[in-house]
């Protein structure tokens, strides 16, 4: 089991999310950095979709009364086990009664604590993911609190891979690649040129639903009221104020603001590692390039064995 001594800023149970509930307006949720979660699970021999704890910006302190094999995946949260430092991507053994302390991030926004066997919670609509906004799934539908006790499951698939090397292409990037969106052509040449040539800063309003950016305003299409339509993960919406919003894992399923671009699937994990005040740029790629990048990422994940 895992006992929460301090929860950190926002720590939730996440897996790869629940697909298929778009028709009732429920977005998949799931890990903000799905690549880190999958790699972490592989390193401790779990199935890739096993549930783990997702920590945000500042992590918590956890006690393992019966011990565990664990790994920290994603950003470096300056973790220490019984006062010995433990870095990301290196599986480690926690003896019974061990205390794992994590602190403020030294790199990106999220760090995953994956334990061998996975974190076990009651499945809701086929997934362990917490949907924070609507209080669904995960551990009692909410972020963890001091005193919570979580069970460790027995979802084990392989031997642990203590020496799994994580390829550079699996690490987060600040140049986010995008394809065109259904309304890209509604925007003027000038608007698109501003969007692609400027840096945009992540504001404090960045969460699992979406990330508001600020930077040079993007003039919106004239008469820009459109009929609400389904919006994909990673859609870059531009409301009338001209400041873009990236829709994220707990996204709204539909929206009525025109979209200038859409983040490619392979770069969604990088979006999950963005912190407030980080500056990003956008780079346009075509659909076949986006697919090729995704396949390359997939091979790099599967190479960890």
């Amino acid at each position, binding site marked *: 089991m895992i006992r929460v001594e301090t929860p950190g800023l926002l720590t939730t149970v996440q897996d790869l999310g629940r697909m298929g509930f778009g028709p*009732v307006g429920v977005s998949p949720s799931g890990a903000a950095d799905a690549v880190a979660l999958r790699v972490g699970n592989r390193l401790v021999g779990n199935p890739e979709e096993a549930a783990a704890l997702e920590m945000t910006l500042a992590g918590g302190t956890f006690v393992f009364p019966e011990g565990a094999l664990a790994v920290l995946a994603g950003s470096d949260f300056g973790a220490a086990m019984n006062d010995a430092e433990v870095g990301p991507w290196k599986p480690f053994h926690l003896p019974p009664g061990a205390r794992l302390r994590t602190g403020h991030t030294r790199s990106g926004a999220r760090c995953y604590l994956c334990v061998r066997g996975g974190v076990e919670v009651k499945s809701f609509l086929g997934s362990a993911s917490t949907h924070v906004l609507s209080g669904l799934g995960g551990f009692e539908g909410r972020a963890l609190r001091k005193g919570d006790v979580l069970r460790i499951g027995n979802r084990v698939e392989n031997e642990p891979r203590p020496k799994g090397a994580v390829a550079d292409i699996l690490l987060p990037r600040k140049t986010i690649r995008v394809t065109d*969106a*259904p309304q890209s052509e509604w925007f003027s040449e000038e608007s698109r040129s501003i969007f692609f040539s400027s840096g945009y800063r992540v504001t404090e309003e960045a969460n699992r639903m979406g990330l508001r950016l600020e930077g040079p305003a993007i003039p919106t299409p004239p008469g820009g009221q459109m009929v609400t339509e389904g919006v994909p993960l990673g859609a870059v919406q531009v*409301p009338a104020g001209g400041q873009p919003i990236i829709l994220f894992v707990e996204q709204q399923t539909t929206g009525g603001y025109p979209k200038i671009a859409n*983040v490619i699937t392979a770069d969604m994990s990088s979006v999950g590692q963005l912190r407030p005040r980080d500056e990003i740029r956008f780079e346009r790629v075509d659909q076949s390039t986006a697919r090729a990048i995704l396949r390359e990422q997939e091979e790099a994940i599967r190479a960890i064995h």
Partner: protein
Amino acid sequence: MTGHESSLADLPARFLPASDQSLLVSFGERIDPSASLRVRRLIRLLELNPIRGVVNLHPAYCSVLIRFDALVTEHGELEALLRPQVENLDAVSLPEPREVEIPVCYGGEFGADLADVAGLHEMTPAQVIALHSAAVYTVDFLGFAPGFGYLSGLPGELATPRLPVPRRSVPAGSVGIAGNQTGVYPFATAGGWRLIGRTPVAMFRSDRQPMSLLSIGDRVRFHPISPEEFTR
């Protein structure tokens, strides 16, 4: 609204890549009952006959966003599979609509934009309330957030643009207007609709079956209640 009538003026469906893992099937660019019927039929069809690689569906007024696993299929292949089905939507039958009543406390702290909406249309707040609560609406689809129903049937006199900058947080239960749409926010979320009132009824609860008060195709009415009835 039979399939026979709806097929007469149907535009051909358009297929647009919306992201590297989704395809938008569009039945036009405006809210109308015929497009909405095609959306409901396509959702029904894909729920009954799933396509390999399709992992999620986002219905809207006149389009369906289809999310797929980009390692399994791609836009062109999916479009080729969907095209013959989309051309035969008239053959899909839908269940009978239900009737749902939603109590609303209009104005004041419950509907911060009621006075502005009234002002924009040179009406009194009471006239806005009377019009809004007299109409019968149809749930064209659920989207945005869990249990958020997009209702068509708003009287034309009440059509109002969204707020230029969305609110950071809208209270759960808020009843809003955006363009010629109306709806109720099930959760406290960010949102750009003009708020005219609030309901005390839970729109979405995970411990209830069905979880969502509204389902696609339902007929909805709002009836005004006092602040005392709201807090009761």
